[in-house]
Each structure stands twice: as C-alpha cells, then as structure tokens.
C-alpha cells in the first residue's frame, strides 16, 4: 500500500487529523485561551469542507472493505457542508452554554468523530466496516444528546437514544450474522454473487434494513425521534435529522440498489407499506405539535417516507432523485432548525404560538423560516419543489401511480402544518412578540448560504446535471 492509495481516504484522514489537533489544543491551551478552540475547529473544518470538494479517483482499500467513487465522495462533501452550516449556527450556543463548563473541545471532537463514522459507513465495502462506521457515528451522538446536562429532558433523550439505538444495533447485527450464515461472506461483492435468498437470508436482510430504518426513523421504528429531537440540544437535533439521516438513506440506497438488487422484489411491498405508513403517521403527528422542535421532528419523519418513493424505483433516476432530495433537504432543514435554534437561544421560546408577530419584530428571520418551510412543503419555485418532483418522477418511472397519489395527498396535508408557523409569523399579531434581536454573524452567514442554496439549487439546473452525471453507480 503506497501513499497514493492512502490518499483515497483523504476525507477520513483529514478528519482524524482535525480531531487530533483539537484534542492537542485542548490539552495545551490555558483555560483563558480555551475560547480560541472554536475559531480553530471552525477554521479547520471549513478548510476540510472546501478540500472535500476536490475530486478523488475511484478505488478501494483494505481488500475492498473501504471503497470510494465520485458519488460517495461528493455526498461526503455535501454532508461536510451541512455539518459546517450547523457548526456556524451553533457558535453562540457553544460560547454561551459550553464554554463555562469547558466542554468546547469535547463538542467538536465528538461531532467530528460522528461524521467520521458516517463517512466510513458510506464507504464501507463489507459489513464489518459498515458496522464500525455505524457505531462510531452513533456513540458520540449519544454523548452529545446529553450535553445540556442541566436540562433533565436532555438526559432523558440521551438515555432513550442509547437504549433504543443499542436495540436496533442488536437487531442489525443479528441480521448480519444470518446473512453471513447463508451467504458465507461479509463482503458486499461476494454476497451479491452468492445471494440465493432462502428464507433465513431474507429475514437477515430485513433485520439489517430495520436497523438502518431506525436511523432514518421509518414508521414503526420512529418513536425515539420526537423525544430525542425535543430533548437534545437543537444543534444535535439538527445533526440527527439531517446529517445522520442523510447518510443512512444513502447507505440504504446503495445496499438496495447495488448489493441486494435481487432482494428488492421480495422487499418492495413492505417498503411500499412503510412509505405510506411513514408519510401518514409523520404527517398526522406533525399536525398536532405545538413545540417547533417536535414539529420539525415529525416533519422529518414524513420526509423520510417520501424518500422511499424513489427507493422503490431501483434505477438511475432513483439515485439522482434521492441524492438531489437529500441535498435540498439538508439545506431546508438546517435553515428551519437554525431559525428555531437562534430564537430558542435568545428568548427561550419554542412554541408555534410564540412566533406570532415575528415578522414585525424580525422580518429577515421570518423570511428565512418561510422559505425553509416552503421548501420542506415543496412549494415552487423553492428547491424543495424540484426535489419532490424528482422523487415523483422516479416512482412514476416504475408506474407507482397510486403511491404517488397518496404521496401528493400527504404533501397537501403537510402544507397545512407547514403553513402554521408561517401564518403565525406573518399573519398574526401578538401582545408580546419575540423582541427584535440581531443574530450573531456566524449564524447570519449560515442563513445566507442556506437561502442561496435553496434558491439556486432549484433554478440552476447545473447541480442536478452534475448529480446525474456522477450517479452512474448501478
């Protein structure tokens, strides 16, 4: 193994390096200089984000257990962008809440470690790497969930998450062992060739997908999502609903479309049912929420149901649609969570009714919220509309018209609740609205980037063209 082939792992190596640098800085910096860790970590991660867009060749390492190709590489870059935006939004939170307890470096190290795990998981060429990546991404998040330890909800969320995540991991591992027992290998390529689908193997595969489905919060494996999102620090809820979910969707897609294509027809009808259940349940719960974080949690469950629409197609159009959707979804959700985050940090208010009259006091923030929610609801010309439209076309390419009909019906229902915060902000008055405040410059930059993203991604077709050029993974 020479240096060139190690460069294939550039993203992961760089991330590890950043983790080490932050750790060393934590050790050598004197307590009064600890606040520079924020700038250091942000700067390094910014560089990493930019570097991650530099193309990499296709290749594999460690006997095929690590694989990279353009699509996965750019998807990592997308996730890095998402994490970077989340970090920008969290600066003032870190300064205010974590710095006094001297938890700054830990926050960055854990978050980067989790992203590292996701990167490994997506690049995995066998179940070992896949599982290691999955756990590496989950463990730090559990710790991060409890980071607001003065708040008992945060602790409760952490406990719930650790228990349910280990349950899902156990089921996933059990599935892996069943597949290993029948196919005789843990390597994806070998398994693909040896897939004869006896009942035992099918059950094993189902358990694997249930394990991933937990991460994506598909119904009926979604129960943790709302409680954890509500209890966890908003930054972490944002990360869970966007980054970790995005990576899990990507893995589900590659496994289904490439390795277990033969299995798809056994599974399709279950996925069909899961898609409907997820959309409907997510929507029905979102309808009744008053807390913005819970509301976004259920909305993100419903969004996962829509992704399954394209998951059913199992063709190149499906790959494009999913990757594009995730890209847009990251931008929309980061923006929406970001607004909730800054408002909750400045005023401690998290309920929809608290947003009454927000437009009068904070017009720009209200606009960001509106565009983000319109994008999630799929109202043109915001990017979210195009993303949903591609999902429909992917499902239509296999003739799932009834499912599309149900999906569009759900989008119409979802419109109702996405409009609630918008209505509160724009069309309602309040006796004591959230007072005007100036959000910090870091969050402003994040908002500007997401807004540009939401408008440009939709109207500039180059992005979709690019994704469609690199999606030839089938």
């Amino acid at each position, binding site marked *: 193994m020479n240096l060139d082939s190690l460069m294939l792992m550039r993203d992961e190596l760089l991330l590890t390096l950043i983790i080490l640098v932050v750790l060393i800085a934590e050790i050598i910096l004197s307590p009064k200089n600890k606040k520079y860790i924020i700038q250091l970590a942000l700067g390094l991660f910014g560089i990493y984000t930019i570097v991650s867009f530099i193309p990499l060749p296709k290749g594999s390492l460690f006997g095929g257990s690590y694989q990279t190709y353009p699509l996965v590489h750019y998807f990592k870059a997308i996730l890095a962008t998402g994490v970077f935006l989340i970090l920008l939004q969290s600066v003032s939170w870190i300064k205010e809440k974590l710095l006094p307890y001297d938890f700054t470096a830990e926050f960055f190290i854990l978050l980067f470690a989790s992203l590292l795990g996701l990167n490994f998981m997506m690049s995995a060429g066998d179940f070992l790497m896949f599982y290691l990546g999955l756990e590496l991404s989950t463990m730090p998040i559990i710790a991060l969930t409890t980071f607001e330890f003065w708040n008992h909800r945060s602790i409760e969320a952490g*406990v*719930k998450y650790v*228990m*349910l995540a280990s*349950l*899902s991991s156990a*089921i996933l591992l059990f599935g892996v062992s069943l597949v290993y027992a029948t196919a005789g290998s843990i390597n994806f390529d070998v398994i693909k060739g040896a897939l004869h689908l006896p*009942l035992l193997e*099918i*059950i094993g595969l*189902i*358990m694997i997908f*249930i394990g991933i489905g*937990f991460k994506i919060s598909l119904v*009926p*494996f979604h*129960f*943790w999502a*709302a*409680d954890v999102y509500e209890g966890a620090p908003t930054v972490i809820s944002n990360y869970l609903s966007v980054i970790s979910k995005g990576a899990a969707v990507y893995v589900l897609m590659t496994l289904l479309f490439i390795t277990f294509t033969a299995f798809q027809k*056994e599974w399709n009808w*279950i996925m069909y049912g899961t898609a409907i259940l997820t959309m409907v*349940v997510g929507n*029905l*719960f979102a*309808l*009744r929420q008053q807390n913005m974080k819970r509301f976004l949690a259920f909305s993100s469950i419903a969004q996962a149901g829509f992704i399954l629409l394209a998951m059913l197609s199992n063709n190149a*159009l499906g790959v494009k649609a999913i990757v594009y959707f995730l890209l847009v979804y990251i931008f929309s959700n980061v923006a929406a969570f970001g607004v909730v985050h800054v408002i909750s940090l400045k005023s401690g208010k998290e309920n929809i009714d608290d947003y009454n009259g927000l437009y009068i006091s904070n017009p720009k923030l209200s606009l960001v919220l509106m565009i983000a929610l319109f994008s999630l609801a799929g*109202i*043109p*010309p915001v990017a979210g*509309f195009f993303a949903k*439209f*591609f999902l*429909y*076309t992917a499902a*239509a*390419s296999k003739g799932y*018209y009834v499912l*599309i*009909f149900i999906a*569009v*019906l759900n*989008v*119409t*229902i979802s*419109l*109702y609740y996405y*409009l609630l915060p918008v*209505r509160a902000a*724009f*069309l*309602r*008055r309040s006796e004591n609205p959230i007072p005007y405040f100036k959000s910090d410059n870091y969050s402003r930059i994040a908002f500007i980037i997401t807004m540009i993203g939401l408008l440009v991604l939709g109207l500039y*077709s180059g992005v*979709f*063209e690019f994704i*469609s050029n690199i999606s030839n993974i089938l």
Partner: protein
Amino acid sequence: MMNEFSYLYLIPLIPLLTFIFLGFTAKKIKEPISGYIGTASLLSIFILSLYTAYKYFFVVGLVDGKYQSIKIMLKENWIHFSDKLGIDIGLLVDPISVMMLVVVTTISLMVHIYSLGYMHDDTGYSRFYAYLSLFTFSMLGLVLSSNLFMIYIFWELVGVSSFLLIGFYFEKPSAVAASKKAFIVTRFADMFFLIGILMVGYFAHTFDFETLNSPSTYETIQNWIANHQIASFMGISVFTWALIFIYIGGMGKSAMFPLHIWLPDAMEGPTPVSALIHAATMVVAGVFLVARLYPLYFHVEDGFALRIVAVVGAFSALFAAIIALTQEDIKRVLAFSTMSQIGYMMMALGVSGFNGHEGLGYMAGMFHLFTHAMFKALLFLTAGAIIHAVHSNYMKDMGGLNKYMPVSSLVFLIAALAISGIPPFAGFFSKDEILTAAFEYNIFIWLVGFLVAGLTAFYMFRLYFRIFFNKQPDYGDHKPHEAPYTMLFALIFLGLMTMIAGFIPFSELVSADRMPFHSHIEWTDPLVIASILMAASGIGVAYLMYYKETSYPEKVATAMGKGYKWAKNKFYIDELYIFITHKIIFEHVSKPIAWFDRNVIDGFMNLLGLTVEKLAERIKIIQTGRMQDYAMYFVSGVIAIVMLIIYFN
C-alpha cells in the same frame, strides 16, 4: 423568426425586479413613490405587450394562413430526466398567450392606477404594490410558459401571491381564514394537476406544449390507446384520466363546482385585488389551461375529457347564477357572477369543434375571456369605489347613489349592460357566439346557457338599481362622494374598452386550429333575437322590482286618481314577479342550493379536516414518552414484518 421576440423575457422580468425592489425597500419608500414605481413598471410592460400583440397578429404571426407558435428558448434542455424526457425553459408566443398578455397587463395596469387612490393612507401601501408586482410576474410567467412543468411552477406562484393578497388585511381573522382556505382548496386541486402532468410526461414523453399539441403526438396517443385496452380505468384510458386530472387543477383555480368554495370568501381581500385576481386574470387560468392543451382535449378519445369540461362548465354557470340572486353583499354577487361567467367560458370550450368555423366555441370562449376581463374588472373596481364611498359591502346601506356618483353609475351601467349581453357592448358578441356554438352542440347545454343569460341580466340589474336608485338610506353628514381621479381614470378607461372590445374581429385572430375564419352576427337569426330578448326581460324584471321601490308609485297613485288602477295592475304584475322569484325561485331553488353549498359541500371539506384532526388526536396516545413502550413497538414492528415475509413466502 426567433429573434423577433427575443425581448419578450423582459415582460415577466420587469415586474419581478419591481417586486424584489419594492420588497426590500418597503419600509424606506414612502407612500406615493412605491405606487408610482409599480405603476411605471406596469406601464412599460403594458406598452411592450401591445407592441407584441401588434407585431404578432399583424406582422409576423400569420404564415401561410395559419398563426405560428413561436418559441423563445431561454435554456434548452434545462433538466433532462432521461433521453426521452427533458424540460426546456422557454417562452411560447401564440394567439392565446399574446391575447392573455394584453388582458393581464391591461387589467393589472388599471388596478395599479386605481389603487393609487384606493389604497391611499393604507399602512400596507408599499407591501400592497410589492405583492401586486409578484402576482403580475407570476401570471405573465404562467401565460408565457412553454411547457407543463413551467406552467405548474407559475401556477403555484400565482396561488402564493393570491394567498398573500387575500390575507392582506391580516388584522381581520376572516381574511386570514379566507386566504388559507383559498390556498388549501386550490392546492388540493393542484395535487391532481401534478399527477396529470406526470402521467402526460410518461405517456407522451414530453411536457412541451408545442410538441404535445402537434398532430403527430395526438395520433401516436390515439394509436397507443387503441393498442393498450388494458391501460384503462373505468373504461377510460389512462391518458384521458391524465387530461381529466389536469382539468381538475384548472377547476380549482377557476372556481368550478364543487371546488368553487374559496372564491366567495376570497372577497375578503382588498377590492382592487378582487378585480385583478379573482375576476379577470387568475381565475381564468383554468380556462387558459384547457385552451392551451385544446388539441389534446379535442382529439384524445374523441374528446371525452372535453365533454366533462362542457358539463362542469354549464352546471357551474347555472349554479352560480342562481346563488347570485340571493346575495346581499355586492362583492359576493360579483364573485358568484364571475364563477358563472367562467363556467360559460368552460362550456364554450367544451362544446367547440376544431376546424375552421366548427371551432366557434373555442374562439367564443377566448373572446368571452377577453371581454369578461374588461367588464368584470370594471364592475369590481366600481364596486370598490362604491364601498369606498359608503363604507359598507351591503346593498341595504346603499341606494340613490346615482346623484352622488354619476360617473360610477354610468360605467357600472355600461358594464352591467355588457355582462347582460345587450348590443353593442362587449359581452353581447362573445356571449352570443357561445350560445350559437352551444346550440349546434346540444340543445340542453344551450338551454342552460340561455337561462343563465336571463338570470345574469336580472341579478346584475338588481344590483345596479338597488345601488344607484331605490330607497336612499340616511347617509348622515358623510354624503357619499365620487372617487378620486386616479380611480375614475381606471373606471373610464375600462368603460371605453367595454364599449369597443366587442368589435374586435376575434375570429380572425384566435381560433382552435389557428386558421383565421370569418364570423359575423346574423341579426335576423332567431337565436340572436331570443338571447337579446332574454337579457332585456331580465333587465325589465329587475327594473320593475327594484327601481320602483321608492315612494314614487304612491305619489303617482294619489296625484293621479285615474292612474291608480293602472298602477295597481302594474303592482299585480310586480306581485306576480315577486311571487315567481321570491316564493318559487328563491324559496325552493336558490335557498336550497345555497344551503347545499354552505352545508354539504363546505361541510364535506370541513369534515375531511376534522377527520384528520381527530385521527391525529387518537394516535397521539401511542407516543407515550415511555422508552419501554417504544422498545416494545420497535420489536413488534420487527416481528410483524418478519411474520409477514414468512407468511407470504
């Protein structure tokens, strides 16, 4: 050919830039300036549109006796899904889009000018002009779209701007509720539209209007339907279903029964907005959509979808006209009247043929769209001036306004004569051609149209007499006064348009097969005479019932003793009319229909919402917050899926 119209992208672009500019500076620019900016930008695109119309219809459009459709490509192959299916961004210039350009910019300009006076001293003045520009941009984009995908985007944008404008007075809870209702109902319809678009995309392999409407496409589709008998549902082929779904989208925007419930409530918006969006432009988008895809509607499966268009249109026309008889709020009368007239246009498209003179219905439908935009906008704007003067929407607070507001009275009369179909005003020509086309198609459809013509004349003049004559309420110290000049200018301009628009030789310009044909009114035709008589008798009845409800008859009775019996006899006739209308039509037809509309149709929509909410309440108990429960559900889910797999394997 292409470069002739390459400036056309400016037409939607200018209002968009105006919107962005006004939107960002809304707080800094003071009252008259933002209005002037909006009006100036509209004036510029109004001139551009007129120039385009002139150039298209009289210079370059007609090639070999057929109007060409010219596509200005802004971005070729903007998105491609597969080798077969892609989307371009382009602008389409053809007779109907040019006609719509003129309609939208004319009405929008008039509304802009009118609002300089109407919105005077309103706190949301700049915001209002910003929204107006957004709407104008979206509507122009919709009109110029070259494919189904683009039209859908602008379709939604129009919906968003309508949402913003209906809810403009957000201090009023009813306005907020109305805006939401309008948005949700039309989105419900758009859901079908979107599915229809996807289906068309996958069966015709294109979204492009030009390709879709070309003979080769619909012949291919016809062959495909003939060879794929299986691909049908309830005996109707998939493609016809796609067209029906698209039409449902149009029904939502155009307030066709039963998706019309948002339109009367939408009157909560400022009156100029009602004139622009809910009378002249946005609500006819559904008509425009059917006209856009007319060759497909006509040819696919012998025009089955078109028959539905005709029946829904005719029914809506009659339904709304009957309800309009009972309304007391003048804006609601006008709203139902709009629904009725749009039903007329839909009916006209539905009964039309394709080639040459057979396409009379299509031409008449478009013609009516054009004339209706003028006189209905005029009616709404006049209503706005009246409401401005008496500060009420209700007819009981009006009366005798003729002497206070002579100009408004005159233009209202012109518009009312036009909508009633009295020659030589604009509405007569278009309405008469619709009735002729309907007569050739089906006697029952014609009968419905004929009846609606009479009802329209009646309710319109009921409105006219009760507002401008009849008993005068006590206005107190604040005598009603004529509107300011800006408002009067718009009224007079539209009044002139209403008088002359009927003489435009429309069949030479717009036709189903794009070939000009000649049509003229045969004054001795019994159909023409019958329709004029019908309108005149509607007006007559209204005159008898509402003009004379003053003390005048009593004075005549006492002053001229001999004339008393004559007056009394006249009174008998009044009684008879009142008996027929009030006792029979109102009590037994209108009221039940209005009740049905209020309770059953609205109720059904409410029930749907309620069910969803109840269901959400029910399943809420599952989300207990207890981890043990979650783990149990999780494991049960796993077991259930595994059992299902084992069972079905």
